[in-house]
């Protein structure tokens, strides 16, 4: 073994360039693989880390409502107690997460947080570790609260949080809680929010989710340790659901066809199309994993390439060893050993690069990925073994196969004839196939991410400022006063309060063309005020906007007057069967089976796209309300350039304007940036992968160009003697290398096309797949190739021919 290392060291010092290119190439491949594998492991590992994760299920429902089906991830909070009564000993918990203002012991300067109200059995289902306290008792008291370690630190700094008081304010209710537990840090890839866990309030009115059968807002989790339990549990739950509903008035609408679904917790990360709520998708993860795998493969090809090229330079050494009696088997072992040692050093360097890359990538993407050494080291070890073995095998067999006599007799370096040089070109070509494919995909993925950020969302997103986007009943009654004060500020052009729009609390209704209740569909119902369309800049396509002076246009909840005239969006008009906006105006549709449910369309407005831009606009009806909204979003449009002035005035007026709210106005454009952050981050991740792929390919090319320059030196001397100019020599050399790069493009184009199309198919709003991305990438690859080869060849092409000829 020591001799292996000392021989290896001699080799390193003798072939410095090749060794460096090899180790760097392998290390880059390893680092890319490891980094992307960590990302994939994180993304695919959601919820899996909970103890007993595989026996946790989430109860969901496919709700049938007036003939349409809608998937609900949450259930009515009334269901679980009913089921528990039938199945003694069932471990299950409900969760109702809500935004709330959290302050230390009655203080008025609280902060906005997401708190999770849950059954005391929460920690029996999600068996999280505790730093202080324990899961069995922490939630047993009605005013207990459990904090995550980061929240304990945020609120209480270095001092122990245990026994301290936190004041939680939500929707007009204020309660004090005693900290009875602090959780140990746990992985962040879970949708279960456990920053603040507190018992469901005893008073039903204080719970975030209404205790009614028609409200699907409590996340419900059960533990079923035996797979056999699943079907018996399902039938019991379903039985409870239908029998309880049949006794309820007004719920008969959705009782009959609604199906309860028991989804394994681990499977809830992605929906049926493989998409996650945060914009991640199974496809994207698989793509990243493939890039990681290909990076290793590219590094291996690079090694094979450089090692075989270098092998030719070592032919004489090997021939001499053979003459001195080395057997073929021993030579193979020796070269495999060399490859393994090289891969080992590359592994160390790769790990170091990963150490640098992971935090960088985490800051870039917001993914809190960390290097878990218990997992990473075995993986690294496997990759190193694979690289040393697989990549070392071919060069080892090739090197050991040289017949000594011709090698020693030949004056010149053998080139393995046409086969050898073609093989090397194929290897470099393969690397460029990979690099070009990833390069094209990177351009497409990034262009799509930018597109998502910049597409028109059907409204004027500039100069639009949102003051609160969360549900807060407190602002409800004061909305008119707040709006008046906002409009009075200099630089404010319009202001509006609305609900069911941006706050995620939209009301869901079904509507249908008149007389065709079987063609009903689900719409989003937004409650808006008179200034809504002007404030958001949503264009009216046909008809008119609703008007407070017309009684028929306005819905007044206190007096139960219901608006007959309604504005809908273009998608809703199409779904109702109207050809265009104009032909919908003046027509009617039905929103139920009562006479007052017949609505007249007075106007059609443009579709507004999701903030993240991923999904198609949903059909929407806009209802003009004159008071209580049930949760308010306040928005204002400022004159162009007036934003800084408005902001500073807002800050001064804030305490009296929005009492008790943290000062956090947010521009619509920032909201969009935030919503598309993951897409942009994913684009950057691709770019890193592509950069590495191209870097490895160029390393290979550089090594090959060096080898080639050495081998063709003599030929260049002859050609120059015969009158070739430097330019002609350079053209010859460049063509030799550009050819495989261009052929590689021919293979990469269809590959990238398939990938890009599949990728883009996941977006409703997508860019056109133009040839530009393909041509651009190929040009870039060709330019990089030319530069690489140029750098290595120009010296040779310019040398005095006599020197080149003497080099024999």
């Amino acid at each position, binding site marked *: 073994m020591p001799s292996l290392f000392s021989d290896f060291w001699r080799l390193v010092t003798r072939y410095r360039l090749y060794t460096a290119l090899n180790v760097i190439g392998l290390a880059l491949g390893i680092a890319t693989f490891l980094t992307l594998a960590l990302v994939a492991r994180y993304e695919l590992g959601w919820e899996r880390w909970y103890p007993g994760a595989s026996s946790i299920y989430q109860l969901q429902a496919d709700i049938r409502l007036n003939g349409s089906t809608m998937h609900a991830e949450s259930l009515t909070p009334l269901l679980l107690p009913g089921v528990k009564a039938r199945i003694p000993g069932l471990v299950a918990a409900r969760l109702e997460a809500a935004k709330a203002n959290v302050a230390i012991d009655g203080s008025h300067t609280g902060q906005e947080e997401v708190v999770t109200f849950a059954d005391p059995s929460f920690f029996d289902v999600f068996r999280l570790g505790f730093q202080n306290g324990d899961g069995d008792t922490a939630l047993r008291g009605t005013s207990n609260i459990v904090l995550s370690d980061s929240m304990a630190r945020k609120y209480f700094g270095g001092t122990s949080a245990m026994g301290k008081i936190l004041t939680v304010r939500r929707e007009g209710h204020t309660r004090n809680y005693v900290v009875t537990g602090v959780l140990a840090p746990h992985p962040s890839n879970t949708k279960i929010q456990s920053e603040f866990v507190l018992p469901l309030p005893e008073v039903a009115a204080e719970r975030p989710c209404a205790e009614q059968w028609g409200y699907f807002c409590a996340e419900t989790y059960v533990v079923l340790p035996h797979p056999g339990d699943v079907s018996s549990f399902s039938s019991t739950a379903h039985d409870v659901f239908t029998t309880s509903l049949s006794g309820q008035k007004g719920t008969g609408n959705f009782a009959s066809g609604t199906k309860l679904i028991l989804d394994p917790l681990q499977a809830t990360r992605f929906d049926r199309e493989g998409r996650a709520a945060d914009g991640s998708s199974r496809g994207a993860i698989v793509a990243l994993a493939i890039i990681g795998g290909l990076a290793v493969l590219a590094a291996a090809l690079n090694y094979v390439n450089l090692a075989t090229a270098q092998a030719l330079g070592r032919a004489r050494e090997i021939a001499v060893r053979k003459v001195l009696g080395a057997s073929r088997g021993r030579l193979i072992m020796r070269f495999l050993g060399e490859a393994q040692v090289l891969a080992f050093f590359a592994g160390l360097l790769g790990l170091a690069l990963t150490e640098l890359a992971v935090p960088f990538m985490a800051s870039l993407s917001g993914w809190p990925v960390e290097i878990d050494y218990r997992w990473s080291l075995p993986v690294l070890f496997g990759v190193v073994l694979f690289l040393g073995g697989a990549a070392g095998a071919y060069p080892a067999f090739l090197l050991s196969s040289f017949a000594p006599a011709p090698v020693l007799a030949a004056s010149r370096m053998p080139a393995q004839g046409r086969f050898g040089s073609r093989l090397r070109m194929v290897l470099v070509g393969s690397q460029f196939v990979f690099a070009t494919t990833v390069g094209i995909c990177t351009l497409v993925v990034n262009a799509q991410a930018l597109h998502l950020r910049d597409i028109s969302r059907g409204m004027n997103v500039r100069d639009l400022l949102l003051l609160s986007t969360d549900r807060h009943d407190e602002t409800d009654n004061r909305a008119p006063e707040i709006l008046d004060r906002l409009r009075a500020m200099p630089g404010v052009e319009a202001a509006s309060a609305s609900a069911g729009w941006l706050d995620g609390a939209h009301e869901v209704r079904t509507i249908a063309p008149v007389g065709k209740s079987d063609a009903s569909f689900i719409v989003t119902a937004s409650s808006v005020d008179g200034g809504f369309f002007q404030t958001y800049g949503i264009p009216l396509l046909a008809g008119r906007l609703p008007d407070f002076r017309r009684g028929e246009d306005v819905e007044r909840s206190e007096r139960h007057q219901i608006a007959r005239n309604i504005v809908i969006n273009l998608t809703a008009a199409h779904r109702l069967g109207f050809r265009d906006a104009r032909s919908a105006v003046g027509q009617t549709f039905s929103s139920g089976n009562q006479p007052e449910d017949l609505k007249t369309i007075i106007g059609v407005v443009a579709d507004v796209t999701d903030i993240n831009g991923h999904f198609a606009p949903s059909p929407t009806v806009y209802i003009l309300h004159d008071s209580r909204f049930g949760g308010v979003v306040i928005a204002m449009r400022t004159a162009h350039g007036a934003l800084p002035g408005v902001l500073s005035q807002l800050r001064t007026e804030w305490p009296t304007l929005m009492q008790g709210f943290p000062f956090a106005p947010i521009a619509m454009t920032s909201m969009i940036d935030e919503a598309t952050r993951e897409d942009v981050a994913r684009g950057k991740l691709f770019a890193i992968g592509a950069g590495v792929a191209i870097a490895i390919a160029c390393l290979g090319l550089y090594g090959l160009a060096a080898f080639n320059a050495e081998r063709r030196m003599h*030929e260049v001397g002859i050609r120059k*003697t*015969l009158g*070739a100019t*430097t330019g002609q020599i350079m053209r010859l050399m460049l063509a030799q290398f550009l050819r495989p790069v261009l052929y590689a493009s021919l293979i990469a184009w269809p590959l990238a096309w398939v990938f890009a199309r599949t990728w883009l198919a996941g977006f409703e709003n997508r860019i056109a797949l133009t040839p530009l991305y393909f041509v651009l990438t190929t040009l870039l690859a060709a330019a990089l190739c030319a530069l690489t080869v140029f750098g290595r060849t120009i010296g040779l092409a310019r040398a*005095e*021919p006599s020197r080149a*000829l003497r080099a024999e």
Partner: protein
Amino acid sequence: MLIELNHIQRLYRSDEVETTALHDIELGIGSGEFVAIMGPSGCGKSTLLNILGTIDRPTHGAYIFGEQDLTKLNEAALAAFRRENLGYVFQSFNLIDELTIEENIELALIYRNMPKSERRERVAQAMDRVSIGHRARHYPSQLSGGQQQRAAIARAIVGQPRLILADEPTGNLDTENGAQVMDILQGLNDEGATIIMVTHSPSHADLAKRRVDMLDGQIVVSVRNAI
């Protein structure tokens, strides 16, 4: 005078060691001459020939070819000069392994703007001239040394150069093949080509019209042979 060398000096500098390969060479060669250069190993014969062939530059001195001082020309102009005026024959043949004999010969024309058909024709003529036509499609490694050298001569003459430079063209050949090569060179000289040849063989040197003897980078004698 076709060629005039004035005060040509060539120094090689490598890692503090300085070698003077050529000292103050004065040499004139007329059109149609056949000059044999002789001298002990390391005396600077190849260096002189390389300078005459413009594939090496003198450290000092002027090299006048026709009316032109070649030491004043740049790279590209020198390349153009070589392809129009010079033909080379080397001791180690210097054929390109990856090209066939035909392609190797064509290489001397490929850097001129000459139509393909004319190139083909000239290559065929040159191959006939040295009786190598039947080996046109072979690779150099498939030929004997004598055949390879004849192919190299075909490549040197295919462009109909005014000056042929030959560095020990018979050095790697047996007597019979050596005689054949000398025959061809004499024939070319008879047709008007100027030839400068380095050789270690006195009998081959005697076949030239003039003999130049060198020692330690200097010309010691230059004698015209009796014909």
